[in-house]
């Protein structure tokens, strides 16, 4: 199907769904009896009254928008699960009443974020207390947070608010184009790696950290979304999954035996340049050839040599070796990820 046809079909599908569901008339389809998760209008009003205790001060003048939470899922008051300000921040009576009349009010019961100290207006709320507030609703939800407890981030006291901005109209960490900058606030080595000449398309906004990682905890290594490195890679590179007639053992073992996914000086995301990468494992008589500036390239930075006490300029290489230059070993063993060709035992088919 042509792209334009597909786009047209998609638009028709969208349009049909939206129209038939009456969205544009603000009428959404009722797919069954009203859920127990919806509440009455009076309950909505009651919840907003509780919010008003806070929003009468924390209004549109806040540097960081507070009221825009009403544009988010947390702000849909007719959903019985939707929190009020107090649901997350606590009743915060001392803060609200400021009984002593101090210029700086006492802290709310729960403040979210990682900062603390004398430069902050309020002391930092303990991570466990912050996260407990979120987990009131999200602890047992079957989904991406199943393995949060005891995970790498949880056990290092990372709080939900370190990454999530629940008041923001668009939580940055939930948008593909802006998610990496959130992660890179801590993962600075990976930030630098994504600037190398060979990278995944994070800069272009076509891929985000959560395409491979689930920061809430997983059963896989490095918080990968699948059980293993390879299973994670196959979500995009399914053609390499096989099984194949002739498999390459390190490939089936772990893609990161050869690749470094965040960025590399050697395309495509390789840990070292062939043939040297291959020579880490292959030492047979065909593979163990010496390659260096003395014999491999036409413009090697060769220096003079001494033979029999006489100094000569190094001869360099008249003819580059097939398995040493360019794609090196892969010039012939192109199907290094495995071959399904009956003649492909050595991955040259």
């Amino acid at each position, binding site marked *: 199907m042509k792209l334009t046809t597909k786009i047209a079909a998609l638009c028709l599908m969208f349009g049909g769904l939206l129209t038939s569901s009456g969205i544009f008339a603000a009428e959404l389809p009722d797919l069954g009896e009203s859920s127990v998760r919806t509440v009455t209008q009076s309950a909505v009003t009651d919840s907003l009254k509780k919010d008003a205790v806070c929003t009468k001060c924390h209004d549109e003048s806040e540097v960081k928008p507070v009221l825009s939470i009403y544009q988010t899922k947390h702000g849909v008051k007719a959903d019985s699960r939707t929190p009020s300000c107090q649901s997350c921040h606590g009743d915060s009576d001392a803060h609200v009443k400021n009984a002593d009349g101090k210029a700086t009010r006492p802290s709310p019961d729960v403040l979210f974020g990682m900062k603390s100290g004398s430069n902050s207006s309020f002391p930092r709320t303990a991570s466990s207390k912050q996260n407990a507030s979120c987990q009131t609703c999200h602890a*047992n*939800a*079957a989904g991406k947070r199943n393995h949060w407890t005891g995970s790498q981030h949880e056990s290092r006291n990372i709080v939900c608010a370190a990454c999530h901005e629940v008041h923001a109209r668009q939580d940055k960490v939930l948008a593909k184009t802006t998610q990496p900058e959130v992660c890179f606030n801590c993962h600075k080595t990976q930030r630098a790696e994504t600037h190398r000449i060979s990278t995944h398309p994070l800069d272009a906004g076509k891929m985000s950290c959560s395409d491979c990682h689930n920061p809430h905890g997983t*059963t896989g290594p490095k918080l990968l979304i699948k059980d293993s490195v390879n299973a994670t890679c196959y979500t995009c590179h399914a053609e390499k999954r096989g099984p194949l007639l002739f498999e390459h053992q390190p490939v089936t073992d772990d893609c990161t035996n050869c690749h470094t996914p965040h960025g590399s000086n050697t395309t495509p995301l390789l840990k070292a340049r062939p043939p040297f990468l291959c020579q*880490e494992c292959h030492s047979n*008589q065909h593979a163990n*050839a010496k390659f260096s*500036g003395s014999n491999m390239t036409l413009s090697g930075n060769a220096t003079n040599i001494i033979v029999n006490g006489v100094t000569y300029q190094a001869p360099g290489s008249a003819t580059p070796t097939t398995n040493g230059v360019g794609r090196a070993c892969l010039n012939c063993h192109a199907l290094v990820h495995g071959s399904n060709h*009956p003649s492909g035992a050595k991955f040259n088919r």
Partner: protein
Amino acid sequence: MNNYLDSFSLKLSIIALRAALLSMAVVSVAYAGEAADEASAAELVKPISQIEIGGTYINNKNWKYGEYNGLDDKSTYGIANIDVRGGAAYDSGETGRWSFKASDLALDTRKMSAEFGRQGKFRINLGYDQFVKNGNGDYQTPYITNGTNNFVLPSGWVKPMQLNVTPITGGANVPLASWVGGSSTPDAYNTRALSSNFVNNDLLWRYNSSGVSAIAACVAGTLTYAKCGPVERLLPSSASGSNYLQTMLNAAATDTALFHNVKIDTQRRKYDAGIVFNIENQWDITGSISHEDKTGTRLQEFVPNGEKDILLPIDMDQSHDQFNLALNFTGDQSFFKAAYYGSVFTQNNKVVTFVNPDLGLVNGADITPPSNQMHEARFTGGYNFTPSTKLVGEFSYGRNTQNDAFLRTSLIASGYLPENSLHGEVINKTAYLKLTAKPIKDLNVSAGYKYDDRNNQTPVKTFAQMDIDTVNSVLTTNTAAALYNNALHTAGLIPLTDVINTGSTGVNIWQNRAYSKTSHRVNLDADYLIVQGNAVKVGYDFETIDRHCNDSWVSCADAERTNENTVRAEYRNTMIDNVTAKIGYAFSVRNAQGYNPDAFLALTPTANLVPNQALVNTGGYSLYSFLQSVKSLGITAYGPSLGWPTGLSSSAAPIAAGVAAATIDGDPNNALYAAVKSWKAIYPTLTTNQAIALTTFMGPGGQITAATYYANGQNLMQMPGQQMPYVGDRDRNKVRASTNWQATDRLTLTGGIDFNLDNFKKTTVGLQDSKSYAINLDSTFAFNDKVSTSAYYSYSSQRQNMTFDNYGTNAGTAIAGGTAANTNTDSMIGGCYADIVARAQSAKIDPCNQWGTSIHDQNNTLGFNLLTKGLLTPKLDLGGDLLFTWAKTSQDFTGVIAVTSPLTTTNSGSSGATAWTTAYIPMQALPDVNTRIVTLKLNGKYAVDKRSTVRVGYTYQHLTSSDWFYESLQAGNTPTGILPTNEKAPSYNVHSVGAAYIYSF
């Protein structure tokens, strides 16, 4: 309040995140609605919709700049983004909301998504995402496609040829008195001739008529390199030579004109849909489906025959469908999830055919990755025994299959296929349990266990195939291959009808290996809060991995088991006001149990068979049984563990009809008598049959090989004592340290160090150690509420040290000062042995042939950001990002290398002429690969009124690379068998300017 500091620190990394246009196009729409200044409460609480229209101009065409963003042409591109939202108001009694977002609509990276639902009841989302990846824009090929992935050469194509320049005086390596052209017509395929200036390359490098005296002068140092080195070429002095030269010139001119550019790019188009449906309060169903097409053109190498290579732009037509369906239960104390995941990869363009540019052979055929499927059931559950004690478990069962038909067309020459397809099947099973608890105040503990099993149940069969399937390849009877044929049939591995076919030249007999892997991992962690602000965490991990192959006749695993123990400790400190710090250290020891240098034998079933005794005498041994029998003599591996006995020529092929051991011992005239006697002299405990087998199984390089009688069989081996790094013994050290200092209300400083050291402590060759560290420094500073800046610097270093041994054959090739006849008593210059014989008797592992390399990657990244909000006027926001990236890969060597050069001549050539011979010279560093990237981004946003905003942007990006990878891809610079592609290292300067209008409602 420190809110703005948080915000500014985020902005810093924006510099890294998007190409200029995209950052303009996408980000502004996403966040323009967050401009809180002067926003009214009503505007903040209602959904804001935005539409953005504009354009940007790119001043330069470059594939690398547009590698992922689609902006690879010099052109004007449209900016079109939509973000519209609607539905119930926050304060209504309704929960229905919807949204439609679209970005980059005018680009090849367009994306659309729609979502609607009743919160708490259901949600449906639909999406479309397009993704482009541009390949090297300089790629060229002479091939044209004649139908889908059927590559042919234009009618005018002339096989590039090596000029036949047989020396007419002297022997091999003797300088010519005069180059007069060959005695026959040129015919050797040589792609180095594909250059208009090929006469400057080595095809014509020879030595002039004054060679002898000139070279003597070179040795004396009285001539310059230009006269001495191989760069001086000789033009033909005869009519025939001139004709040949003209033939080559004509061919080069014809062929180079046929090279043309082909655009290399792949497109991914992904369509997805998802639903969340609430059955009742505690039960949900979630599901999603996605379909992704991958089309376009990508480069893939193909091997017509021998060490020849062509890189072809193959058409892609493949798709990937993924399905998710889950039933979820969420309780007060527990949760449960039952899920299905399906992944179906479909390959539509399965076969690639191509004409061999060496026209002596006609066609080749190859395949693309085959279709495959994976289906998985997964069950996850958790239970809170107490508020702080929780058990979570997850179990999965998956089945991965692949059964595409093998390529069995007329293009496949002789060979035996036991099946028409693989019937590949892998069963994946995982189990995961984790218990977390808080036994006492301030102490958190956890214990986890994971089981992961990849059980490859693919049938193991014997395949007798040519390595390179080429039509018109002349199949001739191969006596050596036939040695095993009867045994293969007797063993039931091939049918009788294929015995003859597999006795053909170039036919190898292989068995597939179905790699399986089972791992068990245990984690124990304890985190204790010593005092407020001081916490320590300790942990222990144990992992054992078993690797094996089902139905393999011998273990296929490089290491049958690896055990790894890890201890970890981490200290976190927030005791000092405004400063947080943490440091962690982890140490791991991995031990390989049963490291198996013979794993490659699983590929060669012939190693387990006794050859046809009527054709060769192996003393009744198979290779494998023989090796098992002589391990007590110290022959422990298949590497170059033995040298030839003194006086026994390596060319003394011991193939002989089966003769009784007693006969050989008593018959000095028997072909094996001398060899057996010699081996027994070295290893007195050898039986005669063992000595016979040793002689028979010794490969041409003096190594014992499973496939001595099959082409390239020795290429499967590894050096004795080598351990591959992915399974070898390893000590691993990791250090992580970081600190954050909130110096003032406006200044924040952070720093961190990552250090890693892997030491592969037991391997003799290969990767010895890998060390890396990274230093990261960040700062953010806010001058006031309107102006902020941030900067960061990262330096990383990674060094890999490797050692190798360039063991060689017994042939006396590396000789200087010897005779042209290369007798085995020649002396050696630069080697560790006095002569070739001495080296051969020392197992050919000459310490002076050992070499090493050190690869060093260094990367510097420096970023600045400046952001102003309403500085000049409240309606104007300005921002700028500047990023510098320097990357350098350097590679040094230790050791010497044998080169052929006139500079190492002697006067003792047997022909009486000065010999142009071989000597060791120092290995020298490869050229540094330097990459420089500079990016400058300037953005401005002016709010015309509450509904209208104008955004402008400018981006400059500069990239240079000195990667010598591309050097040998140029016409005239390639190895002799590789067709040039003329791909060049990326280098560009790109400016872009853009403007867009944003309407909010």
